[in-house]
């Protein structure tokens, strides 16, 4: 028995309790609160260490070798921390909703925790799928649009993510077949990793498999041009689902690339054609989606598109593949998850109270809801990359990580991409500040009126904002969890 098993089981036990009749809010808040404490405990225990910790394995099949194996390294713990924080906030901010909202949130969060904390490829994949199903169902059943429209949005997301998952499954199966050795199939990530160290594949083959995995994981993270499901899905999804999917579950694709694809196929990302393809796609995320976001006229559109756009930076960190840029990618993953969850949470509250999110109908909210405005500012400024908030630390590390080697007078493709990608920061500033100005400043719009939430309803947002501030000022808190080179 490992503490990680308890962390994975708690949300699922809470679902069972609710189903058996326990009060939904109390049960889910209790479970997520205990979970946050447990995850913090593992983080404190792990700080400064390297390698896999808290491992425990329950064999399921001998041959093919399959086991329910848990274990965590720094990246897993950072993502588990992200999950626990966003889950608590997402569940806390639910008000007057039927139990299915709590159950779905617990499933999404629990599935994500399972995917981040298990070390068997089979279960990593399985837990992610488990978390995707409630996402689709909630969009289709409780989305914020007409039934026909929200069903169409849900189907679009299902088809994109379903196809992405199948490509991913093919890629993972390929990995397992290549790295299992002669006599026995194994799904154990550690065994696959040691095999990959012993007998690395030829570069050309690494590139092929990496590309398949990139397409699979990439479409889960809305990598351009497989991104078009994301914006409508987030704009339509019920608030807790939008917070959990954009904040946590989507990060599974990045986690998979960093934790599975890069260590097993170290040369895969550096073969020229793969790297160029990846750079083109991520520039699509940053520049194309940046422009799209600037043209958005509603807050939910802005947030949904910006969430697609910011994935480009994390892919940039992965493409560079240096130690600094990868650590930056992990930190930005964490930071983006917290900040987008904060923004989607506040956005959902505004929609409930005001009934509209269109910029030209809103204005001057700051005078009536100052605390709300400050919280929103935290999210918006973090998203722009203001120093002192976590996103800044991640972005800087990614950008600088690309310049660890500079040949005199010659810039590599990667470095050119960084220079182009920097313009994305400007675009972020444009659309976020515009959103901030047109909602909170100016003359108050007639008839649209909102006040600050009660203190108990501010807690989840304060929790997220405080996380951004603390880890932004002290990024070593996170870096301490990633002592070993990635």
């Amino acid at each position, binding site marked *: 028995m490992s503490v990680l098993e308890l962390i994975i089981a708690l949300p699922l036990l809470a679902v069972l309790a609710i189903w058996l009749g326990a009060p939904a809010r109390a049960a889910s808040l209790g479970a997520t609160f205990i979970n946050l404490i447990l995850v913090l405990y593992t983080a404190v225990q792990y700080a400064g260490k390297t390698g896999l910790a808290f491992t425990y394995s329950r064999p399921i099949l001998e041959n*093919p070798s399959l086991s329910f194996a848990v274990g965590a390294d720094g990246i897993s713990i950072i993502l588990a921390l992200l999950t626990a924080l966003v889950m608590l906030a997402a569940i806390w901010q639910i008000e007057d909703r039927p139990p299915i909202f709590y159950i779905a949130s617990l499933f999404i969060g629990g599935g994500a925790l399972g995917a981040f904390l298990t070390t068997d490829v*089979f279960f990593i994949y399985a837990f992610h799928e488990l978390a995707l199903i409630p996402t689709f169902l909630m969009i289709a059943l409780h989305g914020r649009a007409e039934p026909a429209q929200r069903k169409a949005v849900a189907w679009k997301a299902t088809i994109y993510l*379903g196809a992405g998952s199948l490509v991913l499954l093919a890629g993972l199966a390929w990995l397992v077949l290549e790295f299992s050795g002669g006599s026995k199939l194994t799904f154990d990530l550690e065994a696959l990793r040691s095999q990959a160290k012993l007998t690395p594949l030829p570069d050309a083959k690494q590139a092929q498999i990496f590309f398949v995995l990139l397409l699979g994981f990439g479409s889960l993270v809305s990598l351009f041009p497989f991104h078009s499901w994301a914006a409508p899905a987030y704009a339509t999804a019920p608030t807790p689902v939008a917070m959990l999917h954009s904040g946590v579950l989507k990060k599974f694709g990045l986690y998979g690339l960093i934790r599975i694809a890069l260590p097993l196929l170290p040369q895969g990302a550096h073969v020229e054609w793969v790297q160029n393809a990846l750079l083109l796609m991520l520039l699509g995320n940053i520049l194309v989606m940046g422009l799209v976001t600037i043209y958005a006229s509603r807050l939910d559109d802005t947030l949904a598109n910006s969430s697609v756009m910011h994935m480009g930076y994390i892919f940039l960190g992965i493409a560079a593949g240096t130690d600094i840029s990868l650590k930056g990618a992990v930190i930005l993953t964490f930071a983006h998850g917290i900040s987008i969850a904060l923004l989607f949470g506040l956005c959902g509250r505004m929609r409930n109270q005001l009934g509209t999110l269109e910029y030209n109908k809103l204005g001057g909210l700051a005078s009536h809801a100052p605390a709300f405005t400050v919280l929103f500012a935290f999210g918006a400024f973090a998203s722009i990359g203001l120093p002192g908030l976590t996103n800044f630390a991640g972005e800087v590390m990614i950008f600088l990580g690309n310049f660890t080697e500079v040949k005199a007078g010659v810039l590599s493709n990667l470095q050119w991409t960084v220079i182009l990608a920097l313009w994305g920061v400007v675009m972020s500033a444009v659309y976020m500040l515009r959103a901030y100005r047109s909602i909170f400043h100016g003359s108050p719009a007639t008839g649209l009126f909102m006040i600050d939430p009660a203190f108990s309803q501010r807690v989840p947002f304060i929790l997220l904002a405080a996380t951004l501030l603390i880890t932004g000022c002290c990024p070593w808190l996170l870096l301490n969890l990633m002592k070993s080179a990635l």
Partner: protein
Amino acid sequence: MSVFTIEAGLAALGLFLLLLEAFKPEISRHTLGLTAIAGTTLALVLFIFVSHDTASLPGFIQPWHQLDSLAIFYKGFALVITILVLWLTLQCAPYLTRFTVDGKLAEMFSLPLIVCAGMMWMASARDLVTVFVALELVTVSFYVLVAFARKSSFSLEAGVKYLILGALSTGVLVYGIAWIYGATGTMSFDGIAKALANPATSKTTALFGAAVLLCGLGFKVAAAPFHMWVPDVYQGAPTPVTAFLSVGSKAAGFVVLTRALDAFLVEGSIIGSEIQALLLVVGSLTVLLGSLPAMFQTSVKRLLAYSSISHAGYLLLALACRESARFDLSSGGVVAFYLATYLPMTVLGFLGLGLMRANGLGEDIKDFTGLAKRNPLLALLMTISFASLAGLPLTAGFLGKLFVFLGLADHGYWGALSCAVVAAAAGFYYYFKTILAMYTTEGTDVPALSFSVAAKSVAGALALAILILGVYPKPLQGVLTSDPPGVAVQVK
């Protein structure tokens, strides 16, 4: 007490119940049904104790009878599905009797016992004659069962279709057996394997015979292009019979296919590569022709029929992957594993349909609308069943598909693998379409549904089996890989 005694006893009990109903018509259907269930359960318990005991088998049947792990598995499988079908019949009895001629269900309780004996016998068959006799015992009983709700025109149509096509396929099967006998001079699987490994055997004759034999069996397991009867027959037959056809009859067909292919594809077989190519083509066609039309069905029963075709396709593909040496299960083992996962999910699906039907609902997807509101438990259980049929990870259905896909990838059958993946993706679409309907809440002011405690507990047990097999398949794999000492696996 030997396995053979149990089989004979089951058939005798079936005949006894048949006569009892004829001469004592006042006996209630509950008594008959419960007697049949009790008898089969007793047989299952006895079977568990004597399953590995080969010494007590009567000497005269030894040449036709084998008791390897595969046979033991399929015998247990037949007993379990028969108990479930008998129980399902009792549950559906109130509305089924409306469609029978005399308002009674007598043969619905006695014939499944005879089918069960036939399936158990077939699992042990060592030669084509035994196969043929056992297969006919099963098929002829099914002719009656399918047409049982005679006042329903659907059932009647299904009965006629099944009778004509079934009889035709039997003819084709016998024709194939005759050619194989002509080519190899023997009926036993061991003998056929030996003859086919001998280069002197006439290749054309053997290949033709094997191909025709596979056509005949293809009808029975609903392999494309012989699958057209399935949707109509499944839709028309009474729901318990549909479940029996979909699980029991399919398993019976596949145990024969496993035995026959073990012989045809023996090491050094002169027709090995052709038969293997045939299997890959037929399997790929079957998954596609099962899955793609299923996307457009509006009746859940027809949808399950098409899905059953596509599952047959995965099983055929599993049979095409010989010696998947990198994992413990032989191709026959993968098939058996897949069928074991297929049993709870399919029976649960049909059980849900039957329960809804008993509550006066139809079988269309629109009848599922709002089920979650009307009976959350049933909706949850049906969700588990459909999710597993779709192959969602952590359910039993995923593992079965995973083994098939791994086998195909391991052998490098990329074409077949892509067909299987496309079919699986389509499967996700149509199963989740149904699941989505269950949780849709618009316009459902219909009253809540209620079910008996027995129905709830059986359905719950099936759902639990799906989830447990999905995360802890080791015991099942153990049954399929442990051949007891002293029992030689005849052909490997």
